[in-house]
C-alpha cells in the first residue's frame, strides 16, 4: 500500500503541475485578451486573404481564404525541405565517403568542406547565396544560355517547360516498367538462392526502364514539346523571360544554403557509420573473395546504415526547421506568409503562432516516424 502511494504520488504531482501551468497560461492569456478587446477564434481562416504570393505550387489567388494560403505556404515549406533533404543526402554521402578516401587530395578537400560549411552560421550562408552570389548573376537581357536552353538570371532560373500529349500512356508505361523491375528482382533473388546463379539485374532493369517508355513515343502516340523561355521587354532597360518555368532565386538560394550546410553533418554521420564497422568485417569479406564494391554494398553498408540513420534523422529534422529562415530572403514559406503576412493582416497572434508551431511539430514527427520505420526495417533481427 505504502509502496503504491510512493509510486503514484510523484506522477500525480507532475500531472497536477502540468495542468496547473497550462491552466495558468491559458487563463492569463484569456484575461489579457479580454482586457484588450481581442477575440480568440479561428473564424478568420475562412476569410479572404487578399494578398498575393510570389511562388506557389498550387493555384493561389488573393481571393482565396487564409486557410488556402496556409496550405499553399505549407507546400512551399515542404518543397524546400524535400529538395534540401534530397541534396544534402546525396552530397553528404559523397563527402562522407570521400573523407575516408586513401587519396590525400580528396580526403583533405572533403575535410575542409565539412569544417568550412559547418562552422558558418546558416543565416549568414543564406544571406551570402542570396545577396552576394545570386546578385552576381546577370540581368535577364545579358544572360547567356546554360545548356543552350536555360537561363540563370538575377530574377531567377528559367527552364523550358514540358507540354505532353497522352501523358497517361507514358505514365502507364513507366509504371509497368517499374512493376516489371520489382518482379525481376524478386525472381533473380529466388534464382540466386536456388541455383547460386546471378542474373544481370541492373542491365535488364535499365533496358526495361528506357525501352518501355520509348515504345510509348513510337507507337503509343505520346508526344513531348518544350516551351522555351523567351526574353520579353517590359521597359527600356527592364526585361523578363516569358514561358517555361521560372525558379525564383529565393528558392535556389535557400535550397543551396540548407543542403550545403546540412550535408556537412550528414557527411560526418556517414563517416562515423562506416568507421564504426570493425576492420575484421572487411578483411573477412575480402578473404571469402568479395570484390571491394561488393564488400561496401553487401557487408559494410547494411551494418553502417544502422549507425547512420538515427543521427541523420536529426539532421533532416534540423533542415526542415531551419527552412523557416526563408523569411529572411522573401521565399514565401509558412513562416513568412502565414506567421508573417497573415498574422499581420488579421492580428490573430496566438491562433496563428499556435497553428504554425503545431504544423512544424507534425512535420517533424512525421519525418521522425518515417525514419524510425526505416531504421526498424534494417536493424539486426535477433533470431
Amino acid at each position, binding site marked *: 500500500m505504502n509502496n503504491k502511494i510512493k509510486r503514484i504520488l510523484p506522477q500525480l504531482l507532475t500531472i497536477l503541475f502540468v495542468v496547473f501551468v497550462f491552466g495558468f497560461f491559458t487563463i492569463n492569456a484569456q484575461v489579457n485578451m479580454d482586457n*484588450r*478587446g481581442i477575440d480568440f477564434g479561428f473564424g478568420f481562416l475562412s476569410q479572404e486573404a*487578399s494578398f498575393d504570393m510570389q511562388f506557389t505550387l498550387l493555384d493561389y489567388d488573393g481571393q482565396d481564404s487564409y486557410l488556402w494560403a496556409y496550405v499553399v505556404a505549407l507546400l512551399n515549406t515542404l518543397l524546400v525541405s524535400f529538395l534540401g533533404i534530397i541534396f544534402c543526402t546525396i552530397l553528404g554521402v559523397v563527402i562522407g565517403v570521400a573523407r575516408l578516401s586513401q587519396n590525400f587530395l580528396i580526403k583533405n578537400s572533403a575535410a575542409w568542406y565539412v569544417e568550412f560549411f559547418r562552422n558558418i552560421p546558416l543565416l549568414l550562408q543564406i544571406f551570402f547565396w542570396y545577396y552576394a552570389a545570386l546578385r552576381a548573376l546577370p540581368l535577364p537581357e545579358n544572360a547567356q544560355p546554360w545548356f543552350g536552353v536555360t537561363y540563370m538570371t538575377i530574377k531567377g532560373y528559367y527552364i523550358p517547360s514540358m507540354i505532353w500529349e497522352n501523358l497517361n500512356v507514358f505514365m502507364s508505361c513507366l509504371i509497368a516498367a517499374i512493376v516489371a523491375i520489382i518482379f525481376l528482382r524478386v525472381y533473380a533473388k529466388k534464382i540466386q538462392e536456388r541455383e547460386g546463379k546471378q542474373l544481370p539485374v541492373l542491365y535488364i532493369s535499365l533496358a526495361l526502364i528506357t525501352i518501355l517508355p520509348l515504345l510509348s513515343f513510337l507507337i503509343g502516340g505520346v508526344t513531348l514539346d518544350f516551351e522555351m523561355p523567351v526574353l520579353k521587354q*517590359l*521597359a527600356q*532597360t527592364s526585361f523578363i523571360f516569358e514561358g517555361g518555368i521560372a525558379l525564383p532565386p529565393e528558392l535556389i538560394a535557400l535550397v543551396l544554403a540548407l543542403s550545403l550546410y546540412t550535408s556537412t553533418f550528414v557527411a560526418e554521420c556517414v563517416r562515423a557509420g562506416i568507421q564504426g564497422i570493425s576492420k575484421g568485417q572487411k578483411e573477412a569479406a575480402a578473404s571469402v573473395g568479395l570484390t571491394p564494391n561488393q564488400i561496401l554494398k553487401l557487408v559494410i553498408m547494411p551494418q553502417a546504415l544502422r549507425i547512420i540513420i538515427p543521427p541523420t534523422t536529426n539532421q533532416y529534422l534540423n533542415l526542415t526547421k531551419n527552412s523557416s529562415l526563408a523569411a529572411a530572403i522573401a521565399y514565401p514559406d509558412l513562416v513568412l506568409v502565414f506567421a508573417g503576412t497573415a498574422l499581420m*493582416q488579421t*492580428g490573430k497572434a496566438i491562433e496563428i503562432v499556435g497553428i504554425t508551431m503545431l504544423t512544424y511539430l507534425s512535420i517533424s514527427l512525421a519525418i521522425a516516424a518515417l525514419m524510425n520505420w526505416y531504421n526498424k526495417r534494417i536493424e539486426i533481427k535477433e533470431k
Partner: protein
Amino acid sequence: MFKHLKQLTSLFAMIAVLFAFTTEAMAKKSKTLKNTQKKGFVRCGVSQGLPGFSNADASGNWTGIDVDVCRAVAAAVLGDANKVKFTPLSAKERFTALTSGEIDVLARNTTWTLSRDADIGLTFVGVNFYDGQGFMVRKSSGITSVDQFKNGISACTNIGTTTELNMRDFFNSRGISYEPVAFEKADEVVAAYDAGRCDTYTTDKSGLAAQRTKMKNPDEHIVLPETISKEPLGPVVRQGDAVWEDIVRWSLNTMIEAEEYGITSSNADSMKTSDNPQIKRLVGAEGEMGAAFGLDNEWNLRIIKQVGNYGESYKRNIADTGILPDRGPNQLWTKGGILYVPPAR
C-alpha cells in the same frame, strides 16, 4: 438552495460595486500614465530606421517626426522630452508589441485603417503624416507613369503592411500580372531592388523618398507621380486606457495647433503674455488644460519648448534632410493643406 442564491447575489453585488469604484478611480488616473511616471520614461515603438520618421544616428540618438510625437508625450507627462525608451520594431512585430504591453505608444509610420482600429485591440489617436502609396523605378527604364507597367513586372515590398494589399488591388484592377517579392525588413527590400531583383519598389511615397537616399546611387531612381492609395500615418495606443489615449492625441494636436498660432520653441515663453486667449491656453497661461489628464497646467508649454511645433518638426526632420521639401497635404488647413485639429480649449 434559496439561501445560497441570496448569498451569491450579494457577493455579485459587492464585486460589481467594487468594480464600479475601481473604474471610477482609473478614469481619473490612467494606469499607463501611472506606470510611465513610475518608470520615468515613455516606452515608444518606432521603425527600424526610416529617415525623416524614426532613424537612429551612429551614437543612438533617434530623430524623426514619429520620434517627436513620443518626445512630446514624454515632455508632457515627465517634463523631459529625452525620457523616451525607443524600441525598433518591424512591420510584423509592431502591433503585438503594443497589445502585449511591451510599449505604450506606437509611432511607426502606421496607416490608420478600419480593420486595424476595430479588430486588433488598438486605437489610432490622430494623423501626423498624410501619405499615399507610390512606385519607384530605375530612371534608365524609361518608365514615367504606372500606365507603362506590363505583365510580368516584379515588385519588391514589405510584408505585413497595407502596401501588400494595395499593390494587389492596383495590379488586379488594371489586369496586370505581377510577381510580388515581399521581405520582412525594409533594408532587405531596398537591397534587393537596388541589385535589380525587382523592376519596381512600392511603399508609401514618403518611405520611397526616404529610402531613395539609402540607395547606392539615388539619382538613378525616380518616384512615379501616381498615388494609388490613401495612407494616413499616425500614432497608435492600446485600447482600454482612454486617458492615455487622450494624452497622446492632444500632445500631437498641441504641436499642430501651436504652428497654427505661430508658437515656436523659441517664442513659447513670451507667448504667455499674449492677448489671444487661445494662445494663452496653448502655453498653459489660461484655463486648466491639464487637469483632465491628471497633468499639471504647463504640459503643453513643455511640448512646444522642448520639441517644437509641427512645422519645426517637419522642417528639421523631413524638409531639411531633403526627403520631401514640399509639404503637400501636410500643410496647415489655413495654408492650403489638410492639417486640421480640434481646438484645445
